[in-house]
């Protein structure tokens, strides 16, 4: 039982780190992205390939995954952030589909749907994993808190409030959005690396657009533009999803039901508490 609870805590920690990155995009900058799981996947694959095929150590694989995902985020961000609002959201959806197809079909590298098994675990005990993941989640929290109170954080919120006014006042909103995309991808890559080395197996099904919707649920439920919100959101969503496990449903039913539940949670939050549990910002109507 303790093992199971520690496992849940580790998963929550990984998702909290991942959701912090999305919080920077959605909560602070107002960018709806459904490709956060894709960048998570980029980190996971980089780390898995480096560790299992090149035999590099976890710290190096972890750093490479974070930087590789950040670089991917930078390139994607630079290419798409001249778009705004719904257009930008749609483009991230298109990119999520493309990334999934690459993970699924680049057989020589990703092994496609077969996935990559036997990724070396970074730690041998759950306790060690828990400490590491908790430290990572706290580091992500501190980073977002630091951004929250900084001139850069105010700039992000200014872009979210009125991108045109921010650009009229001489701020490069495209550069701002590109940097936040990069930061967000860095956190996604770090979380992806940890996930790969914790589960020791990855395949494309963990990095779909629907996974990104789960992440959006975490940020919205926890509260946008709140450093603590994604942690609460990750905890809430993971525990709600896990509770289905005890309902005695077969896997084939539980998995789609989980997605339905996430959809319902977003709808309920939007209707009754659009700022989430801890948020200071709500998506405009």
């Amino acid at each position, binding site marked *: 039982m303790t093992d199971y609870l520690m496992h849940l805590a580790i998963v929550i920690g990984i998702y909290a780190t991942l959701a912090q990155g999305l919080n920077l995009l959605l909560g602070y900058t107002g960018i709806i992205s459904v490709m956060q799981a894709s960048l998570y996947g980029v980190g996971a694959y980089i780390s898995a390939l480096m560790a299992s095929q090149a035999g590099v150590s976890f710290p190096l694989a972890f750093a490479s995954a974070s930087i590789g995902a950040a670089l991917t985020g930078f390139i994607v961000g630079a290419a798409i952030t001249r778009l705004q609002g719904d257009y930008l959201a749609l483009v991230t959806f298109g990119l999520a589909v493309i990334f999934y197809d690459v993970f699924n079909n680049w057989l020589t590298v990703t092994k496609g749907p077969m996935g990559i098994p036997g990724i070396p675990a970074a730690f041998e005990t759950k306790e060690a994993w828990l400490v590491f993941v908790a430290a990572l989640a706290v580091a992500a929290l501190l980073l977002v808190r630091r951004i929250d109170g900084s*001139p*850069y954080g*105010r*700039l992000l*919120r*200014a872009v*979210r*409030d*009125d991108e*045109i*006014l*921010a*650009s*009229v*006042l*001489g*701020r*490069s909103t495209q550069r701002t959005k590109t940097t936040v995309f990069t930061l967000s991808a860095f956190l996604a890559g770090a979380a992806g690396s940890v996930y790969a080395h914790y589960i020791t197996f990855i395949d494309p099904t963990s990095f779909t657009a629907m996974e990104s919707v789960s992440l959006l649920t975490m940020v919205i439920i926890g509260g946008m533009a709140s450093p603590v919100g994604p942690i609460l959101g990750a905890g809430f969503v993971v525990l709600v999803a896990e509770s289905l496990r005890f309902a005695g449903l077969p896997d084939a039913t539980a998995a789609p039901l989980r997605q339905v539940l996430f959809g319902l949670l977003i709808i309920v939050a939007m209707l009754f508490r659009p700022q989430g549990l801890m948020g*200071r*910002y709500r998506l405009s109507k």
Partner: protein
Amino acid sequence: MLLTVEDLAVSYNGAGVVRGVTLHTAASECVAVFGPNGAGKSTLLKAVAGLLRSDRGEVLLDGERITGLDPATLGKYGIVYVPQGRRVFPSLTVYENLEIMLYRLGSRERRAAVESVFADFPALRDRSGVAAGRLSSGEQQIVALARAMVLKPKLLLLDEPTHGLSAAWVERVFVSLKALCGRGVAIVLVEQAVEKAVELADRGYVMRLGRIVREAEAANLVQAYRESGLAWTIKGERNYELSQFA
């Protein structure tokens, strides 16, 4: 001459909106641009502010060509544009709205710059911790002016700063503008509150269909406006109202 605009032309999708406008502003001078809706006033201001690309013509600041420079670069030259309608970042506090442009400065310098603006706009000091979105429209416009002043501009480009405000707030905004003029800031003002603008401006231009059709000293502006072929209906003693073409 501080600002010189020469033969500036701007079009939207091939349709000429500003058609060869020439105007100038001296240092510390307040110049108003009048005209009916669709005359091209706001487009002219946006082109000078670097938000629209001109088809032809030049914009010069102190004789130096600044045509086509983006707003960030123009800010370094001391030109600040205050757009119509978009006044504040609603989720930022008044203080944060004022310091948002000072990202290159250290925290102490930022605080000093904002404090100096609070000295000019004392009413904002009490509201500094309030989210700007909670302020009235008039207060938000004062924040927008104060935010522009934080940058210590040489030239302010103001696009209808009293649009949508109550008469009391129109009065207060013009009091603030008068104070700015008295401090040596040059202003190019596009404004529908003609009566107040005439009181403020040193000189004015009347635009019609994308062209300057009259230029006059402030005292002669009313006459110039009438001569430009635009009706200027007088309500009561002092309240003028623009109408469409005569």
